[in-house]
């Protein structure tokens, strides 16, 4: 991944790289738009937390993380899974609950895992994944591996005690954890001002002597650059790093959210500076994108989404006889 590429400020000039970032953001966008329809059609059930509006974060961050790095995410992790390279078919099949899903259909939309890509889920107890990430980092450190564990969570998670405990432990033990707060200004309906007495979230890292920054999470380059810098510090062994990535979710918290807690105008305002429009405008302005290329990328993405649905539709169900499988590790490993 990114480590062999030129540093981000030069990468920004790279047409190919720009198109890849755009493609990934569009893939997440179109993929999730499709899941909205599939949810309405009853193909996907349970909760479905869309990442639409926040794509620049997962896409920008993954660019700056290496294959050997570990990723821990939340229930809003489809975007992260796709950006990490989990095949769209495996992600979609998981949402269907099929056995060819990335968690064999056992996990569903909130619990996507892909061990082969060090993609460690998919945690739906808010803040519950953070200590887990600290532990992965501890294992890396104890085994002398210079990997980063990148842990994504919403700003709502920062009110939970586990966030505080984990920041402290990671700092005390100088563990290679990159804390990535996706501040989308709401925890379900609760606005930031009702969540945190110190709404400048990046300042909270000071309480643990953890270096921190606030980053425009709507700007994929800004995310990429900040994560590259932070990950480098973490990889050097300087201990944890905290980034507050400022963003906004364009959809409801989960499907069926009437969003009585915010005004349509507020959403519209944010949509204007959405990560994809913004990036497309910029690339056009910089002469890095023309209509034909954009159309080609859209076609490419549409094909991938269509393929993912086929995979999901055609995938098998786990046999009901296997209900109690995968509770314990079988004797042979």
């Amino acid at each position, binding site marked *: 991944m990114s480590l062999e590429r030129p540093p981000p400020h030069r990468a920004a000039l790279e047409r190919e790289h720009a198109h890849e970032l755009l493609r990934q953001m569009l893939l997440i966008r179109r993929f999730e738009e499709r899941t909205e329809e599939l949810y309405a059609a009853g193909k996907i*059930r*349970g*909760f479905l937390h869309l990442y639409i509006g926040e794509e620049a974060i997962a896409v920008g961050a993954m660019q700056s993380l290496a294959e050997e790095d570990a990723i821990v995410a939340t229930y809003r992790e489809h975007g992260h899974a796709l950006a990490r390279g989990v095949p769209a078919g495996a992600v979609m099949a998981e949402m269907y*609950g*099929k056995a060819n899903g990335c*968690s064999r*259909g*056992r*996990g*569903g*939309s*909130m*619990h996507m895992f892909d061990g082969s890509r060090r993609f460690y889920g998919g*945690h*739906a*107890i*808010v*803040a*519950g994944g953070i200590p887990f990430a600290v532990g992965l980092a501890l294992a890396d450190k104890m085994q002398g591996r210079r990997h980063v564990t990148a842990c994504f969570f919403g700003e*709502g*998670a920062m*009110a*939970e*005690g586990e966030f505080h405990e984990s920041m402290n432990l990671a700092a005390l033990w100088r563990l290679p954890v990159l804390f990535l707060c996706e501040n989308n200004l709401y*925890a*379900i*309906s*609760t606005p930031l001002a*009702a*969540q*945190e007495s110190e709404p400048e979230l990046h300042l909270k890292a000071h309480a643990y002597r953890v270096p921190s920054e606030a980053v425009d999470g709507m700007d994929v380059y800004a995310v990429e650059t900040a994560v590259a810098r932070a990950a480098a510090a973490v990889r050097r062994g300087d201990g944890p790093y905290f980034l507050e990535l400022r963003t906004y979710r364009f959809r409801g918290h989960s499907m069926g959210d009437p969003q*009585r*807690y915010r005004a349509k105008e507020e959403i519209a305002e944010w949509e204007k500076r959405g990560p994809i429009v913004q990036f497309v405008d910029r690339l056009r302005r910089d002469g890095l994108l023309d209509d034909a290329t954009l159309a080609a990328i859209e076609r490419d993405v549409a094909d991938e989404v269509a393929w993912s649905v086929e995979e999901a539709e055609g995938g098998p*169900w*786990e046999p*009901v006889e296997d*209900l*109690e499988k995968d*509770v314990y590790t079988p004797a042979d490993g």
Partner: protein
Amino acid sequence: MAKLTYREAVRAAMREAMAADPRVFLMGEDVGRHGGAFAVSMGLLEEFGPERIRDTPLMESTFVGAGIGAAVGGMRPIVEVMTINFSLLALDQIVNTAAALRHMSGGQFSVPLVVRMASGGGRGLAAQHSHSLEGWFAHVPGIKVATPATVADAKGLLLAALADPDPVLVFEHATLYPLEGEDADDTPMALGRAAVRRAGEDVTLVAYGASVHKALAAAAALAAEEISAEVLDLRTLRPLDVEAIVSSVARTHRAVVVDEMWRTGSFAGEVAATIMEQAFDELDAPVARVASAEVPMPYAKPLEDAALPSAEQIAAAARALF
């Protein structure tokens, strides 16, 4: 009697209590602006204002603990822990403070706290969002546990909980919110009284919460086979209405206990053991249990369906006793 939904019944109980007693207030995640994750408290913020309908940040341990303190300080808090799945984060406060405070202070303090939460599986929410752990709470002396299965109980048991001087946990099964039924009448309900939901003579189906409806469906199926099943709804797990259980089994001589908890260590085990202890000589067959499969809840629908107790399984378990 007016018809309303289980959701509306819970809301009605809260409105009534808040209108009658200025000490009553509601706090929890998204109870205000959002109207609650299950739309239970919809409209209450507008009606009672943000002082009494308090949106909390995510911090289960602290807002439950604050509820305990507020109760001791003279208020009558209703704390909504959005779902039972997150109550694990607050369990220390419930066990070590709410349940213990009265005793460990030598009876100086009462903790008139109500904690409400949605429980159970069946909605495609997988391993972390489908728990049924009511039996754990029912294990703890110092608290009481209500598990309303009907619309009338959703209101009546909550009002009883609010009238109780001690901490009461109310588990609202998440699949029941849309259920329609009759309003409770005005007679105050007592905690600790089971109810016969269908009378029968050949076997007692003991259940609570959403399982009551599965037991009723099983009873209907059994009736077609000339097996007359009585359905007993426990309504509260602590206090447990042992007398009602025993008196039903003393008539039917057979029992199936239904529980959405995992089988091993389920509350159904407690009920079965109690029946044996109190009515051994009445039993014509061992008490059977129908509970959830021993697996973290799978997402895939066929697997989830198979993991949860079903009317078919209940009927089959009853049949096997003859």
